[in-house]
């Protein structure tokens, strides 16, 4: 009862605090910073000139092509994917009331991996992204239906069926990896390592549509997450159709994460960590937690990708950067503040 009360009481807003403002504008700041960093040496003045030339359409020098065709779409794509993953993590952690849940808990990444492997190994005429997207949705649908009983879908059985479906598809991917020749094997392995190295405007366009379709409903339903995260009995007592709302939220986040994964591969840590960081900084109220998670996820992913592409001669797989930079910081915050953000 007391926790229910606390959440309801905290609905009285105290105006925006500086932390919230900072997090809200962080994606923009990260993007502007990222614009000036890259393998192709372009001075800050030249970056600004190139953008001016592009907007005015007055000239086409090589720098314009690098900034406009390579750097900007990559920054936008990283931001979109970061937003999708961390908003999904926020939604699922709320629904399942479990801090260990990440966007891949229901089998979406292994479904996508299976789709990718299928396309590379057996159906080369189906684009990898489409196959990965469809299979990721199929995996999550399967998990949902496995968990369904006559009385509805319980949270615990959903997590368990998600684990089972993940294991199954992971095994299928291993089976395909075993069958195919080494060249295709290499393709599958590289695809599974998330990366933005091939980002272009058409991938930004596709990701933009899929991620918008997925995150707008989540954004609009963020009020309901407060109620859903209180627990089934309490939510029902307040007159919420728990099963339906939970389904809608899961379906929406699946579209967002499925799109993100099919375009950039599996990128860990962001969806798990960013919502926690925001929760520790700004509290557990989903009305602010969700939008701030979106912003924080976008900013974090843009910065991580800037390191991935700008630090060495290599283009380092982004998952390495997200885990290496995220995990220690996360541990530090956890040790400082404990799990207080969870309000227990």
């Amino acid at each position, binding site marked *: 009862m007391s926790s229910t009360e606390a959440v309801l009481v905290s609905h009285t807003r105290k105006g925006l605090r500086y932390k919230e403002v900072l997090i809200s504008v962080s994606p923009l700041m990260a993007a502007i910073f990222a614009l000036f960093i*890259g*393998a192709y040496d372009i001075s800050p003045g030249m970056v600004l000139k190139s953008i001016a030339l592009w907007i005015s359409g007055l000239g086409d020098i090589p720098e314009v*092509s690098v900034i406009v065709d390579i750097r900007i779409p990559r920054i936008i794509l990283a931001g979109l994917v970061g937003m999708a993953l961390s908003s999904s993590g926020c939604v699922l952690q709320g629904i399942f009331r479990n801090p260990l849940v990440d966007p891949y808990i229901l089998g979406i990444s292994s479904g996508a991996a299976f789709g990718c492997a299928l396309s590379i190994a057996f159906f080369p005429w189906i684009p990898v992204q489409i196959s990965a997207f469809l299979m990721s949705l199929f995996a999550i649908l399967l998990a949902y239906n496995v968990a369904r009983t006559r009385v509805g879908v319980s949270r615990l059985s959903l997590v368990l069926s998600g684990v089972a479906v993940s294991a199954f598809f992971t095994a299928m991917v291993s089976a395909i990896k*075993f069958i195919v*020749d080494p060249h295709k094997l290499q393709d599958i392995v*590289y695809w599974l390592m998330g990366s933005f190295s*091939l980002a272009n405007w058409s991938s930004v366009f596709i990701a933009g549509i899929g991620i918008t379709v997925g995150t707008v409903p989540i954004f609009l339903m963020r009020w309901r997450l407060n109620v859903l995260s209180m627990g089934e009995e309490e939510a029902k007592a307040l007159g919420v159709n728990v099963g339906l709302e939970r389904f809608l939220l899961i379906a929406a986040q699946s579209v967002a994460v499925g799109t993100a994964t099919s375009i950039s591969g599996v990128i860990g840590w962001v969806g798990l960590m960013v919502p926690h960081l925001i929760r520790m900084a700004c509290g557990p109220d989903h009305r602010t937690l969700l939008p701030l998670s979106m912003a924080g996820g976008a900013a974090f992913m843009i910065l991580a990708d800037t390191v991935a592409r700008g630090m060495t001669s290599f*283009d380092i797989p982004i998952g390495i950067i997200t885990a290496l930079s995220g995990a220690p910081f996360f541990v530090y915050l956890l040790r400082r503040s404990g799990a207080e953000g969870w309000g227990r």
Partner: protein
Amino acid sequence: MARMIFSLICAMAFIVPSAHARSITVKDKMGREVSIEIPVKRAVLFETYELVPALGTWDRIVGISRWAYENTLIKEAMPEIRKRIPSVGTGTNVNIEALLKLRPDLVIIWAVRPEVIQAMESRGIKVVAVYPESLGELYEVIRLHGKLFGKERRAEEVIRMMEGVLDLIRSRVKDRAKRKVLWLWSKPTRVSGGAGIQNDLIGIVGGTNPASYIRSRYPEVSLERISMWDPDLILIWGNARYGPEDILRNPQWRRIKAVKEGKVFKAPEWSTWSPRLALVALWMAMKVHPEAFKGMDFRRMADEFYRSCFGIPYKEGSKI
């Protein structure tokens, strides 16, 4: 277990009687010293099977990698390969029991998974690991096969044939200005760095590899870096899932010289751990310096090489 012990005894029994044969000690790619009775009579090859038709050692091979069944050269040189020589898995996934059953006196495998090699050795099988990373190392691997199978002279002949093609290339390109050549692997942003055979080949065919300062075989780099290198010519690995049209159509590449001039080509799907490396080099050279090879017929050259090296005609011409 009993079966394994039995097989082990069989393997031992096979080795012991040949004790009077000459024994050599080989230092392999992983720095292991292996002493082997030569000539080898029952070998299992996981990687270097293209050397079998070149050295004429089909009668010494009792097992082969599963990948060999898909290899175009092997299929043409030995159409009934699936029936004649059993497969015991691949270089990364070996069926040890099936391998033991073949009673091999030598296994040649790539130097990738030490635990697989250890598993075979612990069952009394002699293993040599190879992984040629330069032209010189490839020649060493060919010579090693010659020594192991008692075909030293043929091995030298094969190397001379390869050097013949490479010398022809060297003489034609030596006075030409070097061109910047970028080699792309399975993904357009995965390039050939400063290690590996591909880097050597670019040098031989009169090119420079802008990625050679990255001391790695297949580094992944950003598109920006490729734009900065601005290669004169882009060559795509033959087994990649994309082709020149994907690069030429992509607006992100439009500023690169090779793309502006339409000089993006996909290589033949040939292994470079094989004498066929010489033909890959010839193909590359003819793309990098076409004016130096005017009037030269690649098909005829390839056919000549196939006949003298592998003893079969060259049939893939239409694809090149």
